[in-house]
């Protein structure tokens, strides 16, 4: 019984939250990696682009709520996401046309493009803050829990409750659907294959008649979809605050690089690596050991490897270690 309790404890506090958080990071990391693989620069505007998409999701959610449209138990935001994506793609293509295209055509070095993306970051951040403001916003509605801790305890008769939020399940499901569609697209369709070819060797791809303009456009469209959905899911699960999104850029970068930048599957797994290590290393295991160990051996302290203040530092340390020992990532990078 104690053993079961211990497992439920870990599931409740580590596994489920880490899975949801990891999915959100994974979507962002695939976004970073796609831009890096095809447009060949590190996009420092990642976090702010995600907050931009989320902002549209929130605006549409408010609009739907005001006219009385809802999805019942599901959050209204799910209905708003497709409309937000359309705006987001428009914004992405606009930025590309007026900002990035010039440098791409001139074949500027990647560092210069990264600098330009900092300019885009400033502008996007300003636009988001001017339109929706810097404060914390929750836009979740519908049923909050799938299983409540109390219900679970009653059902099973265990001491530990397992609470699963509906946003966590939605996050994981949407991520699975989206990522598998994306991999199907990249691996099976002609356009996807030409994207991979372009990422692998630009000149050779051009020789074989691949239209670079089309590739770039499709990349931005996919990036827009990923950024909006990733951002909206994060906002649904936690809350929307532009500054948090800017900060999320860092673990997202970490995930993309740990997985091997330019490699979408690596980025996908990298998201979970970062999420799990962040939560595993900062969780206080005291209660877990109380269940597992006999009473005489109960630990005195919290049995916490690192204080939760260092949550971010964990992912960065992993990143630094990976960069030093395997700069191409855990999975070999730079092949889409």
């Amino acid at each position: 019984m104690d053993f079961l309790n211990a497992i439920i404890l870990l599931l409740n506090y580590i596994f489920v939250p880490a899975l949801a958080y990891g999915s959100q990071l994974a979507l962002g990391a695939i976004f970073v990696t796609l831009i890096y693989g095809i447009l060949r620069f590190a996009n420092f505007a990642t976090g702010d682009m995600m907050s931009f998409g989320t902002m549209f999701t929130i605006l549409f959610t408010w609009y739907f709520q005001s006219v009385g449209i809802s999805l019942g138990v599901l959050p209204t935001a799910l209905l708003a996401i497709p409309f937000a994506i359309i705006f987001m793609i428009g914004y992405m293509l606009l930025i590309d046309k007026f900002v990035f295209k010039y440098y791409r055509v001139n074949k500027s070095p990647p560092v210069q493009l990264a600098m330009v993306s900092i300019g885009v970051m400033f502008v996007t951040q300003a636009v988001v803050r001017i339109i929706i403001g810097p404060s914390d916003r929750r836009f979740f509605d519908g049923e909050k829990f799938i299983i409540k801790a109390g219900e679970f305890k009653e059902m099973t008769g265990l001491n530990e409750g397992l609470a699963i939020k509906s946003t966590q399940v939605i996050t994981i499901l949407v991520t699975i659907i989206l990522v598998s569609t994306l991999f199907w697209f990249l691996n099976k369709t002609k356009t996807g294959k030409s994207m991979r070819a372009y990422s692998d060797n630009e000149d050779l791809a051009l020789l074989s008649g691949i239209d670079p303009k089309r590739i770039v456009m499709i990349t931005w469209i996919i990036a827009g979809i990923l950024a909006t959905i990733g951002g909206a899911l994060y906002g649904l699960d936690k809350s929307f605050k532009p500054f948090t999104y800017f900060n999320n850029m860092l673990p997202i970068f970490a995930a993309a690089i740990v997985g091997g930048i330019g490699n979408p599957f690596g980025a996908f797994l990298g998201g979970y690596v970062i999420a799990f290590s962040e939560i595993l290393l900062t969780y206080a295991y005291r209660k877990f050991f109380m269940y597992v160990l006999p009473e005489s051996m109960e630990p005195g302290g919290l049995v916490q490897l690192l204080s939760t203040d260092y949550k971010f530092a964990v992912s960065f340390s992993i990143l630094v270690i990976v960069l030093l020992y395997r700069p191409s990532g855990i999975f070999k990078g730079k092949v889409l």
Partner: protein
Amino acid sequence: MRKNLNVIAAYSIMMGLIILVGIFQSWNIALSIFNLCLISAVMTMGANIQWGYAGLINFGIMGYTALGGLAAVLISVNPVQEAWSAGGSNILFSLFLIIGMVLAVRYVLNKYEKSKTRTYIIASIIILGIIIIRFVSEPGIEAIEEVDPAKTGFLGGLGLPIIFSWIVGALFAGGLAFIIGKVALGLRADYLAIATLLISEIVIAIIKHEDWLTRGVKNVIGLKRPAPYEVNLQQTDWFINLVEKFNSSKLNLISDFADRQAALNQFVIEGSSVFVKLCYSGLFLIVVIILLILTQKALYSPWGRMMRAIRDNEEAANAMGKNVVKQHLLIFVLGSAIVGIAGAMLVTQDGLFTPGSYRPMRYTFLIWVMVIVGGSGNNFGAILGGFAVWFLWIEAAPIGLYLVNLTTAGLDDTHALKVHLIESVPYFRFLMMGIGLLLIMRYRPKGILPEKIEIK
């Protein structure tokens, strides 16, 4: 003279703008903008050495700034005796343990060939060391943080004049840069950017949460000043006489004695804060001029030529027998040390250390905008960038307000859109920075004052 015409013109315009602020807003505001411009100029010089001279990308400026600020605290605050007696020995012992750990790792690195076993041994030394250090330091840290937590709760500093911290800040930042450079400089440019950005975040996380050393988010306030205090100035005779002399024409217009005294008092209060700011300006100006002379000398020295050669073609420079790795490390340390000075200056001026206020937007990306806009590779350009961008950063809010009022002139004062726009005026500075950066990068990629190398 002729060649430098654009430099002189750009600086005159800049000074003119600051003087205009002095005339139209107030001299207090103008001087505080000027002081922060000088600090920004020091930061941009540091970043410019790394990016402009050597082509090294460093997104960790925030971390070095914070370390400089930490130096100001550790140098100037009086030591907290009870905290030292409560947990000082544990902390010192942990420090020895850390040194021992580093030496052990070095020994293993030197003694044995590179192999899997060696990596495992090093990893186990580090992990064991961390666990032991945690056990040793934990009681000490808890004891220190319990000493009067509302006022101290940390070890305090050395109690020296705060000016010394400018040098110590440089040493701290340089030391950190040495460690980072040792491990990360081999990375590709964009990886280096990300790695330095993340490491600076780790530095901030440590400063924020190690309360025994820095008081963390509880902040350290009331640091000692190198300049006189306003309150004291207002009571010194020579200062009152000075203010009287300066404003004699205005004061003479007032005939009534009581009114005249009241006006004089007002002038003295205003004058004291202007005087204090002027003191800071003088100190900062000395630092900027010394650094400018040094960096200019370096730029035109054989060493500067070598750095440019390395920047423009690393492989060729390597083939000519230049030690690229060593020079990169050197310039990384030098640039970061200069940023460290700026960090200490900033805390000196504010008189308080607030770890929570270090954000990458303000302390990393804004500095980069300054360098790019001003002109990388050109010291005068970088300093001008620091001035121009900081000026715009501060004055963006009034300009934004003016623009909002202009464009929404037709709307009612209570119109929702107008109210919303006026509320979001502070964010127009991000917009202006972003658009400014994009425009400069597109139409004047070398900055306002581009790099100009003349062989003398």
